[in-house]
């Protein structure tokens, strides 16, 4: 018996009539039904027809007057096939095989079959979109976390520069370098020249130059994120920006919130108590943004930062900032996101 490599025969039966064929054999395979002419002394059986299992809409077996199988196809242009078996036993073997493959299609209507197929396609689409959103959100959060780590490094370098603690500067620079390299690979932005300038400023051990270049480095990164479009990926960026929060242009709000927290820490470290109140009020303004867009509840962290900053408790403030870091880092791993109600929004503009 001839079999297709991907169509392993699971049942066979002798047929007494099919179209103009008076005798032959029907073979039910895993992917198709094949009809062969009868084997004779002079010639091998020849395949006369093959019907894909997936194209079958329904099947039905009639016992009287002779055992006959009716096959209906999803394509309405394909005519109904009638196959007559030699006896009842042959028909039952085929019926059992078809049922094992297709289920009781003889009991399911065509429209139901269509509905089920549509549902399956919809499920596939939903799953595909879910994966796409997840990838997008992972991409956005990974950039947010990269920005956070860089800002953290720079804001820790500044007091170290004041104290001429070059070991600390070197240690933090390595972190900044790694993160910048990662962001550069992820976004395709060319941050290398500014990174080299920063490295040069640190190796020169010229404190004031190093501070100015640190700030300039942050500016360069912020500009890169504000001006450049995100790299082309498998998703439609503008569609994502319309429907997903947080999205690419909103990254800088996350960065602003975090930098503001670190600035308060820096102000406390430098004893610049005069600027603290202004920064704290801005931090409070950012609370709904972090909640609404980034799905982060930073209320407790803001309260602690405000409290310790006002009490000039530098040690406790530093601990709060570290806790905030841990929370943001954990959140980045979970990369929370949400789809927005389009009726509530207007088209976002790419920066």
């Amino acid at each position: 018996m001839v079999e297709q490599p991907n169509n392993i025969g699971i049942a066979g039966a002798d047929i007494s009539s099919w179209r103009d064929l008076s005798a032959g054999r029907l073979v039910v395979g895993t992917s198709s039904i094949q009809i062969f002419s009868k084997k004779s002394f002079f010639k091998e059986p020849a395949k006369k027809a093959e019907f894909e299992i997936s194209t079958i809409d329904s099947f039905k077996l009639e016992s009287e007057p002779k055992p006959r199988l009716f096959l209906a196809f999803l394509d309405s242009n394909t005519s109904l096939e009638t196959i007559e078996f030699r006896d009842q036993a042959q028909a039952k073997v085929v019926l059992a095989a078809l049922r094992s493959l297709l289920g009781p299609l003889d009991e399911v209507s065509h429209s139901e079959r269509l509905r089920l197929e549509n549902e399956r396609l919809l499920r596939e689409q939903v799953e595909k979109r879910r994966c796409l959103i997840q990838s997008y959100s992972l991409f956005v959060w990974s950039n947010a976390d990269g920005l956070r780590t860089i800002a953290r490094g720079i804001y820790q370098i500044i007091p170290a520069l004041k104290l001429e603690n070059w070991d600390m500067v070197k240690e933090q620079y390595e972190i900044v370098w790694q993160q910048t390299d990662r962001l550069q690979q992820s976004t395709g932005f060319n941050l290398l020249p500014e990174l080299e300038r920063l490295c040069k400023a640190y190796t020169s051990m010229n404190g004031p130059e190093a501070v100015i270049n640190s700030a300039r480095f942050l500016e360069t990164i912020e500009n890169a994120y504000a001006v450049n479009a995100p790299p082309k990926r498998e998703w439609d960026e503008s569609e994502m920006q319309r429907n997903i929060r947080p999205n690419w242009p909103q990254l800088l709000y996350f960065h602003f919130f975090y930098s503001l927290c670190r600035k308060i820490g820096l102000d406390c470290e430098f004893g610049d108590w005069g600027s603290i109140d202004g920064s704290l009020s801005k931090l409070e303004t950012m609370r709904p943004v972090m909640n609404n867009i980034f799905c982060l509840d930073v209320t407790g962290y803001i309260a602690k930062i405000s409290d310790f900053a006002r009490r000039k408790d530098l040690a406790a403030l530093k601990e709060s900032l570290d806790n905030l870091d841990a929370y943001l880092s954990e959140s980045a791993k979970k990369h929370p996101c949400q789809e927005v109600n389009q009726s509530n929004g207007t088209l976002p503009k790419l920066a």
Partner: protein
Amino acid sequence: MALCPNWHENPGALTTCRICGLPMIDLRSELSLLTNSIKSRSILARPKSWNFLIGVGTVGSRILMSAKSLKIDQIAPRLTYLAVDTAKIGDVSVSDTEPLFILHLGSGTIGESTFCGWGELAAEQDKSLIPLIDNMGLRGKDENQSILVALALGGGTASGVAPVLLKQTRLLNPACFIFVLSILPSADESMHRRINAYYGLSRLLRSGQDPLADGVIAVRYDRLKKLRGVGETGEELKTEEMIPGLLRLMASGLTIPNAARFGRLNRWMQTQVMTPCLALGRSLEIFGSLSNVLESCISYPLCTISKDDVVVSELLLRIPKRLAKYFPDSLIADELASFNRKHFPKLKSTIYQVSYTDEQHDRLDVCILLGGNDISRVISDAKTAFDEFRLEINDSKQLEMYGLTKEKVSAASAALTFSHS
């Protein structure tokens, strides 16, 4: 139109989005403020300063401003300047290379603090003073940092602020050396100036604790007015030019790298108050020798002192470089020893520091700082005024008018009695 964080368009004047209610944030300008705030701190990351020249109060700030013409930054390396006053200080530059911090206590519009208590309160309540000192670069237990303060203790700002300021510097670097050039009011000046001077000194020379200053170089204003001297151009110096001249001499000896020798000697001998004897622009052609210049110097001390009380003499000598060969160390040491023997029978230690100038004239600048353990003569006028004040104004409410409390007055009174009786 402005965009909210959700990219809803809003009229520019709104503070929250009319659609989603999120705050309207000008992200660009906010981020720019943050980075500018980092940049503004660049000056604080300069290499650790060795020397600090601080002017407190109106007179102190004016003295500080003369530093540029005196080229103090060339004498004292790695110098940081600080001017503190309750009145507005002009935005002037004192150096082309070294940083100047200017701090107006309070709003800077109060003007002169007339009483030490108010000056002290202004310093204690000012949010910027301590952070500014913290960020000036004083740190560690480092003997390679020296602070030179110029002030007039008769003023309320100087007498009130300087102790607060120096207390913080001591906290930051307990090993640094602090010298205070202080103009004291004369007996005929107003009572409150003398009270201020006494109170300020009492805070600088704290009772029961290490003194804040390693040397208070006390100059009585009435004596200063009578002093005569010649400047670099050959013209006679005016009274207000004398103090910068003295400051320049002090900068050559009492700053890093030389401050440790003078500071350690003062600490060891417990001579925290020094009387300067100043001779500016003494021509060798006229005076003939160093010993004659020293004699000219001792003839008019700038504060009351008894030669019998002197236990330490410190010579600061500034000579033109071209005359250096005529002043070998051996000669200076011999002439100083001879001078000391002649004038100070109880002298226990002496020290000198020579600095050189590129000037082509033949004039020497000399300052001898004389220190004794008994400062009663130096503070006698001020003490009289303070004692009277203490007797007359004993009520807490009355003291409040002067920014003082009973405790502060008692502590001030005990401070100088305790350490030098």
